[in-house]
């Protein structure tokens, strides 16, 4: 249960298993918050101002350790001095989160691992609102639409769900995610964890000038090993009817955002419901076609068959000079399996050109398994055209031009 009286502290700690007791942090700290005994180096939560001066000088990374705690119960120096290893993150019940919820941070860390850690947003991205609604204080949205996107005969049930926020502020940008809180309790009698979904609509709403947004949700009927299992949140969402109320938290995401400057190009690679942010960005650009802002859109989109591609119909209607679409279908009878990486290799000249273009921003979203294939295909495309992907990707990361979200 939430307790509005609790104040959350993001407590700065030192990992005693990694620390080599070199004294650099203690020497560096401008406010003398760090001290040591013969066993451990410790940070005094009453003194540390979070200036982060100690972070980069630490040779080991041990200094870059944090735990969210109830401020009144922060780990004392005596406790820290006795540690052999850092304690696990305890769940902190809060009325108002000062930080992203721990499970949201964990999901995000896994999802963005493929881009090699945190990267900045594009320089011309709009400033995002984040974390307006927390688990203790969720927003209430009303379902205003729920449509099946995949063919009736398709194996996957992928749905386009529209949520309306009425008069409640819930501003989002393309590429951001929101969290859904499924009702009820899990097998252990605890509330279900937050599930994250990418927003599939552009910033001004699924229906412009209405306070709404859309999600792309696949009904989960089996786990990663193919065993039958009903996904709690996805089944809940897919079964929603118009008028139902949904508890929503967020929004989240400060990096996987689209550029806004004229002439910016997008190179998008997705599979399945990974198309949600691509749809949002594409739709944003489509609505602005008349402004003739320049820049190109190139999309690689993988699915089992055309019938299982969410948004297949609307995509096919887009003008060819607006977006360069490359489908990769892996289960078409009588045809060899094709994956997004195969299509990237076929288009290597254009891909290599775009990767090098300082105005082009790359987005990858879909199943975790696609990461390596796409990375290899980019590497090959670069090699064929005399470029070094290893070096290029560092530039892309640094410049906020390479964004990966996989699950």
């Amino acid at each position: 249960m939430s307790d509005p009286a609790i104040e959350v502290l993001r407590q700065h700690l030192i990992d005693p298993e990694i620390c080599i007791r070199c004294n650099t942090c203690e020497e560096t700290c401008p406010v003398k918050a760090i001290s040591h005994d013969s066993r451990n180096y410790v940070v005094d939560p009453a003194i540390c101002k979070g200036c982060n001066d100690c972070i980069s000088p630490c040779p080991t990374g041990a200094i870059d350790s944090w735990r969210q705690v109830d401020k009144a119960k922060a780990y004392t120096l005596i406790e820290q001095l006795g540690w052999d290893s850092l304690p696990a993150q305890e769940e902190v019940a809060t009325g108002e989160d000062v930080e992203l919820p721990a499970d949201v941070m964990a999901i995000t860390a896994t999802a963005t691992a493929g881009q090699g850690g945190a990267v900045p947003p594009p320089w011309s991205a709009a400033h995002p609102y984040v974390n307006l609604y927390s688990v203790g204080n969720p927003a209430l949205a009303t379902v205003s639409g729920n449509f099946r996107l995949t063919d009736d005969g398709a194996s996957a049930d992928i749905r386009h769900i529209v949520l309306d926020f009425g008069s409640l502020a819930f501003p989002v940008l393309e590429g951001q995610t929101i969290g859904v809180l499924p009702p009820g309790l899990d097998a252990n009698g605890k509330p279900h964890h937050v599930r994250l979904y990418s927003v599939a609509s552009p910033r001004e709403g699924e229906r412009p000038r209405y306070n709404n947004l859309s999600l792309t949700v696949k009904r989960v009927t089996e786990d990663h090993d193919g065993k039958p299992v009903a996904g709690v949140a996805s089944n809940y969402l897919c079964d929603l009817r118009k008028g139902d109320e949904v508890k929503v938290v967020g929004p989240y995401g400060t990096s996987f955002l689209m550029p806004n400057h004229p002439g910016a190009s997008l190179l998008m690679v997705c599979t399945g419901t990974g198309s949600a942010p691509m749809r949002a960005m594409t739709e944003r650009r489509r609505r602005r076609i008349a402004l003739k802002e320049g820049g190109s859109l190139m999309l690689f989109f993988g699915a089992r068959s055309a019938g299982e591609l969410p948004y297949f119909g609307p995509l096919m209607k887009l003008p060819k000079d607006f977006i360069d679409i490359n489908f990769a279908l892996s289960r078409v009878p009588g045809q060899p399996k094709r994956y997004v990486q195969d299509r990237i290799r076929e288009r290597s000249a254009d891909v290599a050109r775009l990767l090098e273009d300082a105005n082009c921003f790359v987005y990858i979203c879909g199943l975790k398994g696609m990461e390596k294939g796409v990375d290899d295909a980019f590497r090959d495309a670069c090699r064929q055209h005399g470029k070094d992907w290893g070096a290029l990707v560092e530039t892309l990361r640094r410049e906020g031009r390479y964004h990966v979200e996989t699950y």
Partner: protein
Amino acid sequence: MTIDYAETIPNNVDLASNKTLQRALEHWQPEYLDWWSDMGPDGSQNFDVYLRTAISVDPKGWAHFDYVKMPDYRWGIFLTPREAERKVNFGAHKGEPAWQEVPGEYRSNLRRLIVTQGDTEPASVEQQRHLGLTCPSLYDLRNLFQVNVEEGRHLWAMVYLLHAYFGRDGREEAEALLERRSGDADNPRILGAFNEKTPDWLAFFMFTYFTDRDGKYQLCSLAESGFDPLARTCRFMLTEEAHHMFVGETGVGRVIQRTCEAMVQHKTDDPAVLRKLGVIDLPTIQRYLNFHFSVTMDLFGADVSSNAATFYSTGLKGRFEETKIDDDHQLKGAAYPVLDIQNGRLVVTEAPALNALNEKLRDDYVKDACAGIERWNKIIEKHGISLRLQAPHKAFHRQIGPLAAAKIDPQGNVVSAAEWAANVDRWLPSATDRAYVASLMGRVAEPGRFANWIAPPARGINNQPVDFAYVRFN
């Protein structure tokens, strides 16, 4: 040709406006680069290495990470910012304002201290120059190169002092630093441990753990110096020295981790079996530890030393954490226990504390080194293995001072020459041990892959993933 030194040599000593210093460096810098290409890491000149470069002294500026070709590394000159009212904090001049120029009467002693410290920096680069050919991973290769370029920077730091404060003598000494060679019979490096070979990566990790830690203690003592530019130079070098100890501590720790994994997996502690599995058995690790610990003990100098007393009394070199010690900071009438051999036995005697300063620093060092050995033991303990590593007695296998006259075992017992000969292969790495470890040294240079005898690290460098391309070979 003019070089924009402010650009190529990041500095906070106003190099741009100091013509004398510029002229000295213009002469020395090309010779330094020649030395680096001759004696720096073998065959590495064209690699792109993900290195940390100090570009200023504030916490944000001195850890700047990017790919660099090592000959293009920006070896900078940095002193920690000057404290306005800093005093000489010990010795006969205690309480006087710290010196901003070299006091004439201490000139040769100061120069000697700086040259001795400076000489170790290029020496270790020379000792380690072939290791890149047998790196166990790209991560380790990068760490080796980081150590190498920072040793190079530390040489720069000492040469800066020689050039800026010691005139012609200083310039000649700076050149001699580039002329001596580690292990050279005719023109060796000054200190013994810096003429030993670093033949394999276990030796490298042990060296960075034990021998670079001596560097830390020497720098800490010099950082207390009454000669302010030396103190400030050494203070900044210490932050970099921490990386070297990190490489050593985690390097040895990862070797131990891998060995323990194999011991648990195959339920054995038989060195012969473990060697067949391609890991380094714990007794061999203990023998390497004994060797590097004892060689480093000698670096602190003679147990009773009048030079040490002079350096202290004249305010040139303090004790470890001098200003945190609660005494008169002049050591009047104080005594300190030192070891000696009397009637064939090791005994503790009292010496004037002023003459026992080397021993005091050695003891401070031993405490620090042993704490890290205990952290290695935690890794072993976690695997449910009962063996523990331990530091040998500080009198073990000494080559200088009164203890060099006797043979002393790792427990601190004086033994006969025959006993020593019969047991030395249990105490120090034997030729067979070294040959076995050498046989494991094969180059692993793909991102994310590690040699079989070492575990991957817990974290990458600068928050990069462990399988990051830390070195690109072009």
